[in-house]
């Protein structure tokens, strides 16, 4: 080992050098990769799956839309019970003292029943007396009465019929719910609900939190994701729609979702399916830190000595020299 106090000239004295034009290599690599990208883009184009909107959801699967809207009113959907950052209905994910959802609080307050059902109906009721009356009946009723209507309506929905995009349930005591749901479905099918849920007071709307939460509560969006192999249990992070290759470099991240303890309800050391997102972020942070610290980790830093692949790449450098006069000091690993 040479002294670290030596000058650069002293340090490298006697070490064989190889001329290498790194800039030229970089330029060639960039040019070749760019050309390859252009050719592939011209030949295969790019994924072009139509956007999934609340309108397409309400048109394609009106029964799922109405069922989800009723569940929003009942407060039984995923978003309604999610917890932070949307509400305080759920505990959120945590592992021991680590609970970022609690730490950062309710940063994006969303009341699912009001945001996705009541408020859009209120806006639509200005020019619709029948809807305004139904909405007033609903809001003037106590929670007990609303619960009874919702319970009866939710039990009738599985047997509902869909005709020309309209959902009809058998006769029963549902209060104003059929009128409210029929109007919400009509608003959604016309595309107005998409606009109402993204209106944030800006000229350009880029915040799709509310429509995504609403669609995520239903079965339509998750059904499409399942068909395209994009869900968490299908290694979805590294997949792309159609026959395009996806984000293969995310294999390690998504792999953890397929294995114990992140697939188990009981788990191990408090890590389980219920806090898989947080657990996997913690695990990947630890692994990334370990990767950055490889030169300082005994055993791991010695892997190149046991698997000398670099000697294969630089085989001419490591080949035995013909003359003892030209012996050199090999780079220290």
């Amino acid at each position, binding site marked *: 080992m040479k002294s670290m106090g030596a000058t650069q000239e002293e340090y490298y004295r006697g070490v*064989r*050098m*190889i*001329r*290498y034009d790194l800039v030229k290599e970089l330029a060639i690599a960039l040019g070749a990769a760019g050309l390859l990208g252009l050719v592939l883009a011209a030949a*295969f*184009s790019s*994924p*072009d*799956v139509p956007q999934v909107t609340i309108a397409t959801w309400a048109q394609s699967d009106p029964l799922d839309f109405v069922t989800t809207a009723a569940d929003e009113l009942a407060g039984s959907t995923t978003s309604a019970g999610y917890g932070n950052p949307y509400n305080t209905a759920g505990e959120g994910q945590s592992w021991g003292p680590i609970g970022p959802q609690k730490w950062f609080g309710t940063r994006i307050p969303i009341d699912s029943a009001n945001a996705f059902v009541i408020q859009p109906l209120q806006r639509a009721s200005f020019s619709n007396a029948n809807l305004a009356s139904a909405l007033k009946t609903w809001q003037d009723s106590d929670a007990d009465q609303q619960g009874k209507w919702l319970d009866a309506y939710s039990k009738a929905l599985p047997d509902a019929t869909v005709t020309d995009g309209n959902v009809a349930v058998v006769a029963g005591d549902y209060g104003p719910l059929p009128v409210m749901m029929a109007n919400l479905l009509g608003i959604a099918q016309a595309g107005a609900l998409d606009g109402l849920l993204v209106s944030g007071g800006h000229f350009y709307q880029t915040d799709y939190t509310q429509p995504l939460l609403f669609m995520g509560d239903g079965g339509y969006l998750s059904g499409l994701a399942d*068909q*395209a*192999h994009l869900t968490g249990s*299908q*290694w979805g992070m*590294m*997949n*792309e*729609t*159609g*026959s*395009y*290759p*996806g984000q*293969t470099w995310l294999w390690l991240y998504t792999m953890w979702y*397929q*294995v114990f303890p992140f697939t188990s309800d009981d788990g191990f050391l408090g890590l389980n399916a219920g806090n898989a997102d947080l657990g996997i972020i913690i695990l990947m942070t630890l692994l990334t830190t370990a990767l950055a610290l490889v030169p300082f980790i005994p055993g791991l830093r010695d892997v190149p000595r046991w698997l000398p*692949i670099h000697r*294969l*790449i630089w085989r*001419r*450098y490591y080949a035995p020299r013909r003359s003892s006069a030209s012996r050199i000091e090999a780079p220290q690993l």
Partner: protein
Amino acid sequence: MDTPTTYFHWGFILISTPNLLVIAGMVVLFAIALVAPFPHAEADDDGRRN
């Protein structure tokens, strides 16, 4: 290309054919990089031409 592709399923592993091809391509490129000579075979290791 927008039509669904096929997936291979081995145990907990589920991978699409395009992803498998990309990974296989990366492995082949790595193998080629190991054995392909550097583009200065006519020069000696110290950079001097023979």
